[in-house]
């Protein structure tokens, strides 16, 4: 991402320009760029802002979702700490477009440096009247606050996040109503991921064409990709959509330090991609989905060659049992029963009842209220498909 917004002066100059820009034009730029949400669900950002700008409400909110909880993901953290002005700029413009005067950054408690960086920027911008009442003498006012995350993975889900800001138990809510019409304190609210907001800033400053020209219509622009320490060159990289995965892994990542057999891409709910499939994939949301995986937030976690896959499944069930809200029945009970199944495998007290496990996975996938326990079956099904042989001796087929 280019660095046109690293100083408050640049910030002021750009803001001055956009304060005079027509809101519809801003929405149009976002739509033309084909930017989709980087937080996992992939909703077109321009549409989200447009809906919220049209929603009725005497008060509206902008929320930046900085609860980055995916294992192996640190791209949001990178942006918060190294490019805070870009994120904040995106929030201010969103506020201007939708008619909001208040934004909240929901930042994961494990990111104290991010909180510090954002806090510093907010204070500085306030002093310069680039945030607060009547920004730069206009009648647009916008204030920002920070809310520190409650600590469970589910807090990153937008309705649970809203509940958490309101001081309620972080529990997933039914939709509709969607946050754009009834969000924080039941007021119209845009919830955007950190990276989405930073990308929006880039698009608006540089024009949508450049972004849209990369990749394809549904997977446009660039995406931050995090490579873990199994790569020779670990780190976060901004990569054009459509880039072949093998190029990312072998050239950018510089290959692997140790033998690996698979990768979990896109966080705990993302797919488990066997090494052999990497050659057939490009950095593209739809391609991943079509193959039964999920690109999501694009973090890459390597699974070493000698790591037992039944333990990996155990770890996934345990994750959803511990990090879910427990509201919906298949989520609360299913995650726990799945974990128990693999506890018993680990302790050698029982074998995997394959039929029941498959039914359980379908039940969770189809029945759950949200994508936490509803998507955890994705990596598990991938593992059963690609690494089933590895667990052959631990399974009973007709139970």
């Amino acid at each position, binding site marked *: 991402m280019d660095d046109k917004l690293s100083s408050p002066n640049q910030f002021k100059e750009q803001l001055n320009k956009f304060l005079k820009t027509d809101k519809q034009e801003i929405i149009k730029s976002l739509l033309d760029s084909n930017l989709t949400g980087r937080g996992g669900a992939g909703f077109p950002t321009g549409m989200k802002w447009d809906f919220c700008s049209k929603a009725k409400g005497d008060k509206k909110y902008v929320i930046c979702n900085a609860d980055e909880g995916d294992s192996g993901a640190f791209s949001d953290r990178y942006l918060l700490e190294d490019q805070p002005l870009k994120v904040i700029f995106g929030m201010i413009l969103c506020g201007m477009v939708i008619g909001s005067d208040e934004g909240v950054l929901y930042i994961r408690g494990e990111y104290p440096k991010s909180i510090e960086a954002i806090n510093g920027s907010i204070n500085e911008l306030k002093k310069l009247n680039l945030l607060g009442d009547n920004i730069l003498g206009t009648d647009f006012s916008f204030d920002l606050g920070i809310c520190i995350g409650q600590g469970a993975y589910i807090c990153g889900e937008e309705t649970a996040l809203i509940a958490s800001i309101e001081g309620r138990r972080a529990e997933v809510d*039914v939709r509709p109503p969607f946050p754009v019409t009834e969000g924080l304190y039941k007021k119209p609210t845009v919830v955007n991921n950190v990276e989405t907001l930073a990308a929006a800033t880039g698009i608006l400053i540089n024009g949508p064409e450049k972004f849209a020209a990369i990749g394809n219509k549904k997977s446009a622009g660039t995406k931050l990709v995090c490579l873990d320490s199994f790569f020779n060159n670990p780190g976060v990289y901004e990569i054009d959509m459509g880039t072949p995965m093998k190029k990312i892994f072998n050239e950018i990542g510089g290959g692997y330090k140790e033998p690996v057999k698979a990768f979990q891409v896109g966080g705990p709910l993302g797919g488990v991609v066997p090494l052999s499939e990497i050659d057939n994939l490009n950095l593209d949301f739809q391609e991943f989905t079509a193959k039964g995986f999920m690109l999501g937030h694009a973090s890459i976690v390597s699974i070493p060659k000698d790591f037992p896959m039944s333990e990996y499944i155990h770890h996934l069930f345990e994750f959803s*049992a511990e990090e879910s809200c*427990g*509201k*919906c029945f298949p989520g609360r009970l299913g995650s726990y029963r799945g974990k128990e199944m693999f506890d018993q495998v680990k302790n050698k007290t*029982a074998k995997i009842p394959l039929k029941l496990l498959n039914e359980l996975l*379908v039940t969770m996938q*189809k*029945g759950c209220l949200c994508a936490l326990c509803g998507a955890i079956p994705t990596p598990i099904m991938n593992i059963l498909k690609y690494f089933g042989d590895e667990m052959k001796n631990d399974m009973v087929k007709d139970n």
Partner: protein
Amino acid sequence: MSSEKRKIAYIDGKPYEIGANHTSILKFVKSYVGEKKVPTLCDDPNLAPYGACRVCSVEVALEKDGPTRMVASCHTPVAENQHIFTSNEAITNLRKNIVELVLTDHPMECDSCEVNNNCELQTVANDLGISDHRYNSPKQHKGIPRDTSHDYMRMNLDNCINCGRCVRACDEIQGSFVLTMSGRGFESKITTDNDMMFGDSSCVSCGACAHTCPTDAISDVFMSKSADVDEKVRTTCSYCGVGCNLEASIKDNKVVAIDTPKETEVNAGHTCIKGRYAFSFYDHPDRLKTPLIKRNGKFEEASWDEAYDFIKKEMNRITKDNGPDAFAGISSARCTNEENYVFQKMIRAAVGTNSVDCCARICHSPTAWGMQQTFGTGAATNSTEDIYHADCFIVIGANPTNAHPVTGAKIKQQVMKGKKLIVLDPITTELAKLADYHIKLRPGTNVAVLNMMLHYIIKSKLYNVDFVRDRTEGFDNFIKEIERQDVDHLAKVAGVDKQLVKEAAIAYATAKNSMEFHGLGVTEQEQGSKTVMLIADLAMITGNIGRKGVGVNPLRGQNNVQGAADMGCQPHQGAGYYEVADEKNQKFYTEKYGVTHPTKPGLKIPEMFEAAIDKELKGLWIIGEDIVQTDPNSAHVVEAMNSLELLVVQEIFMSETAKLATVVLPGTTFLEKDGTFTNTERRIQRVNRAVPPLPGTKPDGVIVTDMMQKLGFDQPTYDAEQMLKEIADVVPFFKGVTRERLGKLGLQWPVQEDGTDTQILHTESFKLGRGRLKNFDWKESTEIETNKEEYPLILTTSRILQHYNAATMTRRTKNINIVDEDVLLIHPKDAAHRDINTGDIGRLYSGRGEVALKVEVTDKVKEGIVFTTFHFPEHMVNMVTGHGKDEETMCAEYKVSSVEVQKISNQFKTEVKPKENQAEVS
């Protein structure tokens, strides 16, 4: 409306029209193909959709043969042309697998469970054909100690399925926020407050959680969800004027539990502690079971015939010697319409006097009178349901969350959703805490504050020009008088902030729909009727009359106080509100009753007392009213009763008044009789006999009719249905009422001949044609003028949630374990002057008498004001209250008494009540 295109969606291939109330696929499907087509566990039609259980899942496709998607039907909207599939293999498997998961964490001891055969989980599992699960030794939440610490509620979390309905019922319906789901994932569980025992929590015992809980995880001591009963009888609550519909469970001719039907107009499956749980008074050993005649100062048991003959002889003697006006009757707002009607008929037609009154005299007579003067009809203009359509509420002198709990909860819910609320009250009530504008005025200054509000509305030109021009009269003079008001002076006497009153006035005037409620804090004052008329002005000049979500709405105290007045238990108006002094009306009544109707208006209750003391009134018949405990200045009342030659009291318990009677006749409770009650929104609802009268007792209507026959009056034997027919023939606004037509939900009067009822009054015009705008200046209460030097504090009284008025009934239930005394509230500054601390015993006294009460120091009351309830005969708070009366209607001035408080001792020690704690482990 109908010009809109009809929208269609398909259920299992068949087209159906999408209606306005089809807010989810579930509602849509249920309305066309029945309740059972789609199973549910976390859904309750009275709660917002929640989406937890997922057994309501269905498949949908956006077009015919399009790709399908599984969705939870309870929270997914129906879309036009959508194809909905309610069952196929995938759906059934999903539902089965989910319920199987639920069973992995359920004890499965149905045979010994309270809700066996009335359990939603059991039903859903049976319908899906599963009784067991396939998981290997799953961990369960088993052996959680049962919480039996509460006097009414019971918790058995082993059987909890985490559907969250109890939490939502407490939040969304009751608004008390006692229950929470705490913990995460598999460890989530229901807790009360911060992990307190149920009995120590802030629970208000409304029972909403037990009512909605699909299993027996939350229930009550009566096991009200048990299917092991002989019969369930639908009836109407006999406590307050909200008029909740109840359902009594009967076993072996006893009422074993009370719940509420889900489908009701008034209460939507909700009640308060009194309606649902405070019923065990009905067969309490204290019930009177035989007539009693006092001879030589002692009650002797008598047969019914003996008692009737005794009364007949005495009545005849009194009226023969002194004329019919030496006799009077006080009817009961707790009794049915039929009973009130026949009682006033006895007094008027069989005795021959108009001296019949009821407790409306001491509560809402100023409302009835004031609204008659301004609108023409003395009843609530709108319906309770309108609460959902209002944008701003003004609540004056009422504490609905305590005194009208179900209506109070509804208002509270709306306010929590962001509707505006203005409260005029000297006490920081529960609603006042939530109010946008709490005008904490001192008692006796309602007229001052309303004049201020009117002034600000007029000055800011916020009145509704069209409404004032088309629907009212007297505006020119009105505006002059209002402009003349000295707001600074008024603000000073009321002790309120001018700016706050102004903002509240503007909020009321500018909201789209503003709805008014008032209680006895308005009426029980010297300027009570005037306050009512100013409230009517406020509604009229802002155009808040005659449509949904607005109006002037008295919160009627007793269950049938509206009905008692409608039926003619008033000395100046007969059944249907015809003035008795009018010759035309005399003719009408004479024709209907078959005897010459008296024309001289009779005595009002306070006048009866005076007349008794003056030996002009010699005989009095009272039904179910403990006037000694509840009327102000008890000593005076006792003197009056003792001056009578004959006092007949129809009662269910030996009340303070009954003790003074010559003859006591044992009546029955509402559970043992048929009839109708009319609630605060003019809804006439059926009371259906749940159990036969206790041996030895008779329904009150039967007693009165028996007596009429004894007196030689031609009155057919009492039958509630026949009596209602007679009423429909006499009372014009009951014209189309029959017992059958009332059905389950009742009808709101006026009811046309064809049975059409009326939700909103004054939609086109007022009964008086145009609404009359009237002005009144504020005047200091005589009570304060006279006594303020000697008795500088002002006492105002009210009631609490757990008890009802004289508490004759609620004291004889477990409610007494929850609250067992009247407590005096005093402001910290006033307490400091008198060296009083919380827990001390104080002497509350006035020129009339004194009582000793436990004191609580709190800023809930305004400085200079003290507050208490009047529920307990041990305290007899009305020994202290005053003689003041509303100028127009003689309604007693309970809300303003000049008093003083003195510390007696700090002897009070916090008594630790032994509670059965979590002993029992299943």
